Each structure stands twice: as C-alpha cells, then as structure tokens.
C-alpha cells in the first residue's frame, strides 16, 4: 500500500491511539504522554522528540563511532567467553524482541524482561484457568456497564485510557477499589456516569460472588443489581496496577467469576498489559513460551520460577566464580533512567539502549540505540494486545536500533 495515506497517529510511548482532540493542545505540560505535532504531521511525545534530536548530535562523530565499533568487538568476545548469559531489559517492540531472542538462542542464554513479575502473574493465571477477555475496541462499542477495578496507579500508567474507552454516549461506570477524587473526576470528564465504591481489592472476587450468586436474578445490593442487570459488562484492570497479595490467584479468581457469568449473560475482562507485551507475544510465537526461558543447544526450556531475570542475577552474584564468567545483556527500548539496582550489580553488563547509565563496573559496555517509533519504525502492541501497530519514525535515524546491534552480533 504505497498511497499517500495518513499515517497512523499513535503515541509511541503508551501505545494508545492519540487522535484525541485534547492531545493537540500544545500547551500541555511536559509529562511523557504530552504530544506535539512534528514537522511531518505525526503526533509524537514531546519528550521523545527532544531526545531524538539530542541523540542525532550525540552519535555523529567519528571518534564515537570508533568507540562503539570497539565496544561491539569486545562485547562479541564477552558473549563468546561467558558461561552464563542473561538477556533482559525493557523490550517494548517486536524488532527488539526478535533480536534478543535470537541472541539468546545463539548463545544458549536465559531470557526474561527485567520487571516481568506482573506479566508472569497474569500469564500464569491464564495458563491455569483461562477466562473471557475482550479488546478495547469491542469493549468501547459494546459495554453496557464498565467495572474498573484497581487503584490510582492505573491512570498514572495510562492517563488517556478513560478517553479511549468512551464511545461518545453516556455509559455507567463502576469504580471498585481505592480511587482518589482526581481519578473519579478523570473518568467523569471522559463522559462516564461514575459510581465509586471503595473496597479492599483482596476481597473483590469473593465480594463479586456474594453480590451475584449463581442462579440469582435479583440482588439486595445496588452493585449486585447493576451487575445482574447489565447485558454486557466489561471488567477492566491492569495487572501492574493491582496491589494485592497473590496477584495471579486474584486474577484467576476474577477471571473464573467472569467466565461463569457467561453461562447466562455476557461479561468480559479487559486486562491492560504492560509495554513488555510485545516481548511476551513475540517470544510466544517464536519459541512457544512467553519468556523466562533458558536455551540449551538452541532448544527453549521454560520455567516461570527458575528463569526469572532477577533470580538469575541472585544466582550469579552469589558466587565469585560465576560472577566473573557471566554476562548480562540489557536491551532497552525505554527512555527512562536505567534502574539503580541494575547499575549497582557487580556483574559485567552489555547495555544496548538510548541511555548509558552511570555504571562503574569496568567490564560494562554501552552500545547506543535509537528511540522506538521516533528514530526508527517499529511494531508495538496496544495495551490490550490485539492491535499490533506499525509506529512510524519521524526523525532521521541517528543511532542503530537494539535489533540492528543484535543482528551484528549474530552476523
């Protein structure tokens, strides 16, 4: 398709569609989701755009290129010599995921994104019991009742979600959990008729069961009446915004309850994933597993408990001998600062990303990478993991993408 079609307008940071009128407001503040129009007419996050221009100037000198070539050579030697390798990081696009997985396969490494506990809990719950899910577009069009479960951190992570959820007509929305007045107002401003019921999240699956016993057509409680009356109820939650003990069991219980509701009516869950969804999806189609794998002779072995990135780190740092012969490959599609706990690790590291951090470990190497969706076109999943968006680059590439560095190791 080579027509002069309008480019998809997508926030490359949050993966949400940003064709929303208020996002054109150039006076918006400088938080990551603020958008401006770039010269090519595409909406890009302000902060990413400024980072992109900074990057171009940072990597054009011959001296730096020479340094990076030398880093690549040394890192290749480290990869060959290491007896235990972990590929980890903040992997947000299909291209970086593919490269990381291929690197892990080639060097018989373990691979797992850095903060994968949230995703792992959601995946474990699904692997045990399944559920009835929904995509954002379907939920937006079909919902007769929204039930948003969680706490304020949901909106801190995806502040534009209420606008993306709303179809332009009045729809009731029930907020369950711990919500501030600001969050309630956020949903109201998006157009929902909001009722907030404060409750302990831990108890929620049980409470739902009490409000709507099987076979019951009438409930004493107002919530129960709403739940029983709606013909298509959408339960929205983000696993990363659920501060509950035993998150996987909590999700499993909610999913089971929702699945059961479908015996007589229609109810679905919309689980809003993290930016690492693109990694988990890609890893699943390439290897059959969502991550937390160790390659042995090129064959992936899956153990959601044994091959957790941070557990690998604990194992390697516990032994002086293991420490010296291990290598942590950090693949970064994020513009956030590198985690302090990573920089403090007494392990050799190869960092491929836009940010060098300030590690003092003498064996650490940095290969600078561009910015997904800004300096390079990449594919990223929307939070509901249904739509894989091709996020166009707007700026001329300055640095290589992590996937391009990874290819050079493999060539």
């Amino acid at each position, binding site marked *: *398709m*080579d*027509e002069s*079609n*309008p*480019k*998809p*307008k*997508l926030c490359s940071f949050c993966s949400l*569609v940003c*064709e929303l009128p208020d996002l054109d407001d150039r006076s918006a503040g400088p938080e990551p989701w603020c958008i401006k129009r770039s010269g090519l007419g595409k909406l890009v996050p302000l902060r990413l755009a400024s980072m992109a221009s900074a990057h171009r100037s940072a990597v054009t000198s011959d001296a730096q290129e020479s340094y990076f070539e030398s880093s690549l050579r040394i890192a290749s030697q480290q990869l060959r010599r290491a007896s235990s390798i972990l590929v980890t990081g903040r992997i947000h696009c*299909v291209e970086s995921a*593919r490269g990381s997985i291929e690197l892990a396969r080639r060097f018989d490494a373990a691979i797992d994104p850095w903060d994968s506990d949230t995703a792992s809990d959601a*995946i474990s719950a*699904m*692997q*045990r*019991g*399944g*559920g*009835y*899910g*929904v*995509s*954002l*577009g*379907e939920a*937006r*069009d*079909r919902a007769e009742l929204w039930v948003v479960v969680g706490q304020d951190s949901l909106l801190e992570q995806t502040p534009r979600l209420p606008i*993306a959820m709303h*179809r*332009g007509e009045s729809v009731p929305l029930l907020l369950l959990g711990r919500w501030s007045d600001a969050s309630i107002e956020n949903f109201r401003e998006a157009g929902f008729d909001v009722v907030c019921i404060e409750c302990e999240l831990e108890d929620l699956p049980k409470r739902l069961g009490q409000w709507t016993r099987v076979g019951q057509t009438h409930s004493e409680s107002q919530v129960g009446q709403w739940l029983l009356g709606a*013909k*298509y109820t959408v339960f929205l939650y983000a696993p990363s915004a659920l501060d509950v003990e035993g998150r996987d069991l909590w999700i499993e219980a909610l999913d089971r309850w929702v*699945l059961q509701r*479908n015996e007589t*009516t*229609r109810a*679905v869950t919309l689980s809003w994933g993290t930016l690492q969804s693109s990694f988990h*999806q890609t890893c*699943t*189609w*390439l*290897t*059959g*597993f*969502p991550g937390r794998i160790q390659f042995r002779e090129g064959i*992936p072995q*899956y153990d*959601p408990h044994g091959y957790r990135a941070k557990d690998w780190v604990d194992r390697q740092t516990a032994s002086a001998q293991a420490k010296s012969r291990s290598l942590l490959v950090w693949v970064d599609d994020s513009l956030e600062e590198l985690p302090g706990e990573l920089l403090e690790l007494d392990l050799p590291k190869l960092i491929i990303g836009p940010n060098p951090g300030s590690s003092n470990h003498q064996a650490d190497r940095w290969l600078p990478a561009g910015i997904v969706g800004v300096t390079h*076109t990449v*594919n990223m999943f929307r939070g509901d*993991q*249904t*739509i*894989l*968006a*091709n996020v166009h680059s707007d700026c001329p590439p300055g640095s290589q993408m992590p996937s391009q560095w990874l290819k050079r190791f493999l060539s």
Partner: protein
Amino acid sequence: MRVTRLKNVRIVDGIHASSKPTDLYLVGPSLARQLPPETRIDATYDLEDHIAMAGGIDIHTHIGGGKVNLARLMWPERSTKEADEKPWLRPLSAPVPGTWETGQRYLQMGYTTCFEPAMLPANARQSHMEMRDTPWLDTGGYVVLGNDRMLLNMIALGAGQEAINDYVAWMVASSAAMAIKVVNAGGIDAFKFNQRQLNVDEVHPALPVRPRDILWSLSTAAEELGLAHPLHVHCSNLGTPGNITSTLATLDAVEGRRIHLTHAQYHCYGSDGPHGFSSEASKLADRVNRTNHISIDVGQILFGQTITLSADTMHQFANRKFASPRKVIFQDLECQAGCGLLPFRYKESQFVHGLQWSIGLELFLRIQDPTRVFLTTDHPNGGPFTGYPHLIRLLMDYDFRMSIFDRLHPDVRSVSTLPSLKREYRLDEIASITRLGPARALGLQNRGNLNPGSIADVAIYRNDDNPEKMFSSPTMVFRGGEMVLRDGLILRDCQKTVLISDFQTRQDALRWGARPEHSARWQKLYGYSPWLTALRTDEFAEEGLQIEHAHWHR
C-alpha cells in the same frame, strides 16, 4: 543461474499421467522439462525409484494470529505422552508450537506453502508477522468478515452491493489477504448479544440481518471483485448434531456462486442413531459431486491431544464442558469477531470421536474429483498437521484403514458405512488433494504442479509400500530451485514469499479508507483511523518478503 537435473524421476502431480521415469530440471527458481543441449548442469541427482511432487500446499492451517498465539501460551506443558502412545503422529512439542518448529516440521514433510485461514482484520499485521517468522514456508491468509459490525450495519441499512464490494475490497487489501473467510455468519456477533444459536434464516438479535444475507453479500463480493479464491466458509452450527441442514442451506444461500466449505467434516452430521449423532457425509458428497462450483477441505480428526481454536465463540463456548484439561480462553474482538480455545482429546473409544473420524474419511472417499477435496486436519483443531502422512496411508490402504476402524466404539462399527468404501487413493490423487487442487482453488497457477515454468518447489520421495513412511521423510526438498532439505536435515534458509490476492479494484480499495465519510464511520466505531491497522506493502519488503499475487482465471 543454477541448473539442477533430477534424473530418472517419476513425476506425480495429478496432471501428467505417464508413470515412466523422466528428467526434470530446476532452472533458477523455475521448472523446465527440456533444456538446450549446451546448457551447463550444476548438479545431477539420479532419482531412480523416487517420485517428484510439487511442494505441498496446506489451504487451511492455523499458523499465525492472536488466537494461535494464545493457544501456544495456554499450553506451557511439554509432554512426551503422545510421543510414547502414538509415535505415528510424530507429535509436535506442543499442540500449537512456535513458528520455527512449525516451519521445520512442514518442510520435513515436503510442504512449502501454507495459509492461515482466519486473520482478524484488526490483527492482520500480527498474523503476517508470525507467518514471516515461520521459516521455509510461503504464506498467506484469509481475512475474517461476516461478523464485523460495519458490514452487518451496511447490510441492515440496505447499503447496496456496490458499497459492500468497496468495503470488502478495502478489508481484503488492507489486511493483505488472499481471500475472504466467513465464520458462522453473524453468529459470533449474535453471541455478543447473548444469542446462543443462529441458523441460516434466523435474524440477528440486534440487527435485521440473516446469515443467508451475509453469505450472499460476501460470495457476491468475492465474485464481482474477482478474488482468486471463492468465499471460504465455516458454516453455522459447527459440530452440532443435525447440522447438515444448515450446511446445505449455506450452499443454497450463495445461489450458484463459487464456494469453499472448510473443515467440512464438522458440518455434515445427522441426529439419528442410538446416540442422536450420525453421518450425513453422503449428502454433502453428493452435492459436491453434482456441482462444480463447490470445493471442500475435510478437517479430518486424528486421535490424540490437541487444542481446538476458532473464531466461532458461539460454538466453542457451547463446547467448553468438553475441555481436557479443563481450561478455556475466549475473547470478543474489536467489533469484528472473537476467538475460543479449549484443549481437547480425541479418543478412539468415544462414540462421537470415532464417528467424526469415520465421517472425514467418508468425505475423502465419496467425493470423486480429487481436485475439489483437500487434505487438512484444520490444524490444530482435528489434530496436528504432522499427522498428514498417517492420513495419506488411511486413504491409500483399505486394510490399514479397517485395522483402526476395528478398534473404534462398537456403535461406530455398527452404524458407519466406511467399510463399504473400498476406494484406495492413488499417488496422483494424493498429489491432487495436497497440491494441485489447493493451488487451483487459490488461483496459484505456478504452484502445485510440475509444469514447465512453475515454481521450482519440489519434494522428492522414495517409493515405499508404506505411504506413511514415504510421506514422512522426503529424500530432498527444493525451494525456488535450491535444495533446502536432504534426508531429513535442513540445509539452509530460503527466500520467503507472501501471497496476496489481486483484483481489479485494488487501487480503489485502498482509497476507500482515505474517504472522509468512510474514515469517520470507522473512527466512530473503532475509535481510531482505518489506517492504524492497514498493512502497507512496503512493510513486507522491510521484512525481507517477496510478494506474489494470485489471479482468478475465470
């Protein structure tokens, strides 16, 4: 240009009738039967006692997309149980393995082209990307329509066939699809409104639309747009006793237009007999034999563990109680369709499963024209594609077929007419149901045969009295004229091609999404621009894929 001579090989492609050994040349990416005498030959292989077939084509196999990936995700177990119990199935590492294993195992059977039959328009990019990561196979996909609310609204409002054609053309083009598939026309959307069944002449609960209207509109669009492959239909009432009525009504609904019925085995059931479940395969086979505009793929079941996955949430949900192990995943997706997944174990000792097995074979054996009945298991629904060599033996060897039939539930043995069907497939008929027929049905003139000028995708098999052994392990496989497999070992990677339907209105189709009135309607329904999910052809080039267009030769 590299030239390879396959000397003294017997050509079996369903077209060439001679059984005498001959020479076949691979000249670069194409085939030739004769060469000028001065031609330099780079490699010669004396293949006495071998046959050459075109690379296999799987017209219906679930290898990429959201539900396929969910099926991978829901089955983290790795078990050797199947391998121990049924080594003849040559089990995969999981019912739905990763893309690398899928490509490898297809190639190791001599298959080179596969089609994902259920791409959700919103999710087409993911489907293509997974297929891009499936090595050694050329791939394409069919876009799922017929439950998309935009189309249903257009039919309900009487938008007219011309407007529907424009919309369908856009959906096919923007999904980079080969064809249109309809799954339980209107039924998936009806289930979103809590309706649990929708027959061909029943009205949708929220819109004045019947499945018959949808089937007519889409088959007309496929015909008038000139799509190479006819409407690919998953009928209403999947797996339901007595569903032969709705299957025949579906065939009537297209009023003589070309139609392909997929996994037909699941759609020709009666409700007679001691268990209220019987075979009506003869009725469907008779209809296929009497007309020439119908083709089918069978969707044969093979005994063992699998995962069933389908866009047909209505019927998958109805079957949830049969999940084994007991876990199920369902999704309602993007005002376009849905998906339902449940693990399932087909057992020889179970009456219904035994009769399903028998019904699939009946279809193969009763349909006379082997270029209109295609070998599939609807992978992974009926069983893994790695069972194809076993299935070929079932078709070619009556005694072997009966040896398994004799193990089935006694009531199957008493009601099934399978023993009376003594037909044994010949090799050229196997070539037709696995190569020639699918290629013709898809409009791929230069695939599925060994004609001069066709693509040099060739599988070489050593003759063997046991067809299962023969088709499990080709001696050589060539892709685009290069040998990529020898004696089971994969030698090299190869160029991949994505197959896309071509039709006269492609340019118009792509302009559809830019028209303000269409864009506004789309935006209102989905909340984003139609271009967000539309694939550009340069995305394929960036991924290193070639593009091949299929044409309908009327």
